């Protein structure tokens, strides 16, 4: 390891500088911050959107990022995925462990299924995969965001990174109204599993060339979101 004593030297220097800057007497422990009352939060923490409104807002906002959103019934899922593959000429489809088998049940022989479990796919296999199919942890209507957190049916981060086309399936019940509603659930999930979280809002983009939004610099250039309608 690098540094050793030099490292702890810098640690003490920095902490000492901070205490002097704040004119603190004691060297302090983390006890103080743990007992502080929360700051005042007068911003909105909950939306009053109905389930129907959330669904529409989510679809509209995801589409504004030039992704495609479709709202479908549970029974249609297999066929829809097959038809997306055939329309877009997808010949190989990567899927994480824990995917619902129904989703890939209607794929025809023209689509090679690449499973990340039990043996993880290699970087090369993923880089050559035409598309990836995953579920999601949550959606946020207000911002048109899908959130992945490595749960079942979502897989490792690399899966949704290397293939050029991401098909993401989310259930209507998973769509929250505004961001704070999603953060609360993420807070709990991170404390429980410690798994990485990725928020995705539209396909990859840059505004670096004269501020024109250009799709697809590095991540998937196409994003197709299928929302499974809640059974009423």
């Amino acid at each position, binding site marked *: *390891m*690098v*540094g050793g004593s030099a*490292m*702890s030297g*810098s640690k003490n*220097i*920095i*902490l000492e*500088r*901070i205490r*002097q*800057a*704040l004119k*603190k007497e004691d060297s302090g422990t*983390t006890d*103080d*911050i743990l007992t502080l009352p929360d*700051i*005042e*939060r*007068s*911003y*909105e923490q909950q939306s009053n959107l109905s389930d129907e409104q959330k669904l529409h807002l989510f679809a509209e906002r995801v589409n504004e*990022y030039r992704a495609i959103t479709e709202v479908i019934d549970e029974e249609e899922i297999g066929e829809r995925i097959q038809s997306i593959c055939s329309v877009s000429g997808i010949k190989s489809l990567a899927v994480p462990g824990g995917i619902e088998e129904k989703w890939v049940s209607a794929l025809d022989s023209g689509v090679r299924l690449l499973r990340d479990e039990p043996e*993880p796919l290699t970087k090369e296999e993923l*880089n050559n995969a035409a598309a990836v199919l995953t579920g999601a942890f949550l959606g946020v209507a207000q*911002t048109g965001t899908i959130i992945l957190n*490595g749960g079942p049916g979502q897989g*490792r981060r690399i899966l949704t*990174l290397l293939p050029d086309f991401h098909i993401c399936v989310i259930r209507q019940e998973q769509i929250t109204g505004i*961001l704070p509603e999603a*953060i*609360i659930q993420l*807070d709990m999930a*991170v*404390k429980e599993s*410690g*798994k*990485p979280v*990725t*928020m*995705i*809002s539209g*396909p*990859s*983009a*840059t*505004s*670096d*060339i*004269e*501020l024109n939004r*250009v*799709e*697809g*610099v*590095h*991540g*998937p250039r196409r994003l197709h979101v299928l929302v499974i309608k809640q059974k009423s």
Partner: protein
Amino acid sequence: MNNKPALNPITFEQSAGSYLADTQLRRNIGHATQTIRAKRATAVGELPDWEELREAGRLTKERVMNNLDEYLLQLEESVIKAGGHVHWAADGEDANRIITGLVKEKGVTEVVKVKSITTDEIKLNDALENEGIHALETDLAELIVQLAGDEPSHILVPAIHKNRSEIRDLFKEKLNIEHLSDKPADLAEAARLYLRKNFLKAKVGISGANFAVAETGTVVVVESEGNGRMCTTLPDTLITLMGIEKIIPKWQDFEVFMQLLPRSSTAERMNPYNNFWTGISDGDGPQEFHLVLLDNGRTKVLADETGRQTLFCIRCSACLNVCPVYERTGGHAYHSVYPGPIGAILTPQLRGFEDPSAASLPYASSLCGACYEVCPVKINIPEVLVHLRGKVVDYKNEKGGIRHKTDTIHIGMKFMARTFQSRNRYERLQRMGKIGQKLFVKDGAISRLPGELAKWTSIRDIKPIPKQTFREWWGDRQ
């Protein structure tokens, strides 16, 4: 290797003059800032609770700064618990030594990097280069800047000073591409192909951090292009450099910052990708993670009670885009990796007034207050500017003796410093100024001011104080 900022003898005023003469640059910057400005206003206007979010953002950052030692210790503990390593760097040299050491341990000669102003601040790429390690910049704009051997000119859009035909020519030459159009999509495609093969073979990735959560050890990189995902996911080892001020106490604080940042910076409801990782995660992403905590002058900023708020900055760049001075001079005139209004207050505090270039920065403003109005964490930039001007004068006094005490700037700045401490005084002075300036306004700009102030206006026009300020307009509306 000496990574202390060079004592650049060129002041803001001197270089602003030559940039003002560069019409291409002015056109690029003008187009860019106007575009983002309008978009930001829309994105912000959409949220009914924007002011409440700003207030919560400010309160959170204030709390962090007032207990910074404890939050750092808590963060360290959390990151270690999650399987990461934590390093402390008192200055840039320290950080460069730690990072180059870690990279050398892996025996690689190339690393992939995602845009980080903090690594620019300590000139990490040069330090790595000195050890024979090439740091490949992977943001499109950073790549452009790196290929051109240039300096970034905007926090968010570092290549804002280059237009697309300039970029096309650069790619053709440096990436050996024979035929390339200047369509943004084609230029992006060229960069995608070139960078993808480098991502796949990268063993070490280096990033900055937008936030780190003390309670859980979660680190975040907010981005658009996906290169942040690549750099934080593909390599075996990830090294993240963050300024000690980037901490937030807990996950819940993302409720606030993940709304404030995207809308203020890229003017979007949400930017395409946000990457959050908590130490290491079995079988997913880098299996070795190092977090380097950097001071490099930040504790000096912390010690100044008026200047302390500078550390609240979340680097959204909204203040750059509304700044009339930045719009006219571009980022390079600031001679710092932190341009615009935030640079004008941060750089002199980090570097100290011995550096004449840094000491000239608090004057790079007409104190119009637009930056304060847009700042998502409510940093009172005009107040800090005026406070720093007072300190510059004090510093010169110590060096230069009695003559300066009667200097008009000295007296003026002391007066201004008091004015900005109170909103009433500020508004009263603004009203007075509007009457007083009538004598000097010509064609909608103030191009010549009397006496000492002539030095200021001889290189730039000042926007006169509008007939009705935002505050007055708002007041009338309610």
